């Protein structure tokens, strides 16, 4: 499946809407095991993405992804800023070679891993991205698969980011970045894959 410029833009605007809708929930999740700002961070960041994208009249995939990266890098303010920012920056670079969705999201995952040094099982957004990449490889990304990946962060003990400070006490809580990544991929299913 190809990610055209128009679809990329629709995807990210849908993501923005979902983040705004669940802003308080994301911050509540972050309050439990972090500092309680993931919702407002992502709301600020995706709002800036929206502003950047609305300026683009004829969207081109790499440019859309790059504008999203720049907005997230400069406006999020938390760890999720450089992480999502690196993901979209890698996707933008890759989009110059291919617009295949699986390859793009895989590049995004590499960007996150490069920046945050987290692995699968560390209870971070990587735990959403990695199974999504696998599902996309088999052309089998569904909302159920996404929910399953997100929920699977619950029993994990956080090993990266602020949640790692609470150690054992992070067990049983959803990872906020995994949840916001879930919205990103639900938006992808809605705007691009369906």
């Amino acid at each position, binding site marked *: 499946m190809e990610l055209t410029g128009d679809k990329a833009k629709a995807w990210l605007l849908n993501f923005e809407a979902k983040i705004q809708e669940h802003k308080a929930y994301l911050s509540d999740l972050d309050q439990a095991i*972090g*500092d*309680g*700002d993931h919702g407002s961070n992502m709301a600020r960041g995706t709002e800036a993405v929206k502003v950047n994208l609305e300026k683009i009249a004829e969207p081109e995939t790499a440019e859309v992804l790059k504008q999203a990266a720049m907005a997230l890098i400069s406006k999020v303010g938390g760890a999720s800023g450089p992480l999502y920012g690196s993901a979209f920056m890698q996707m933008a670079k890759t989009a110059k070679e291919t617009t295949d969705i699986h390859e793009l999201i895989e590049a995004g995952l590499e960007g996150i891993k490069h920046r945050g040094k987290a692995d699968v099982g560390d209870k971070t957004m990587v735990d959403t991205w990695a199974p999504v990449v696998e599902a996309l490889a088999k052309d089998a990304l569904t909302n159920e698969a996404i929910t399953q990946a997100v929920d699977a962060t619950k029993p994990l003990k956080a090993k990266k980011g*602020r949640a790692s*400070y*609470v*150690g054992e*006490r992070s067990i049983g809580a959803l990872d906020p970045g995994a949840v916001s990544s879930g919205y990103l991929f639900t938006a992808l299913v809605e705007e691009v894959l369906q």
Partner: protein
Amino acid sequence: MTMGVVIASHVDKIAEGVYQLIKESAPDVSITYAGGTDDGDVGSSYELIEAAINNNEADELYCFYDLGSAKMTLDMVSDMSDKPITIFDAAFIEGAYTASVLIQGGYKKEEIDAQLAPLKIK
């Protein structure tokens, strides 16, 4: 026994800022701070540190300092105080953050001390 955190810095802005940083992740922990001299200069103040210790609502205090002379002042105040006070020779901000988050999480003293041990650098 509730546990609280006291932050003693040589600079008023550092003390306030560390308080701000930590409160976000440990909103229910009693955290008090003292920074700089009575006149707002760089240094440490017996009165301000004493007030931070007295105003802390917790039964037992974990204290963190930036440089050695704030430790000596903490020591003096601690000698005069009835509260159980532990002064940690840990990385200042990282130690205070770790302790506060763990207290917020309801961890026991032994567990907190174990987490602070690798942060000892002074």
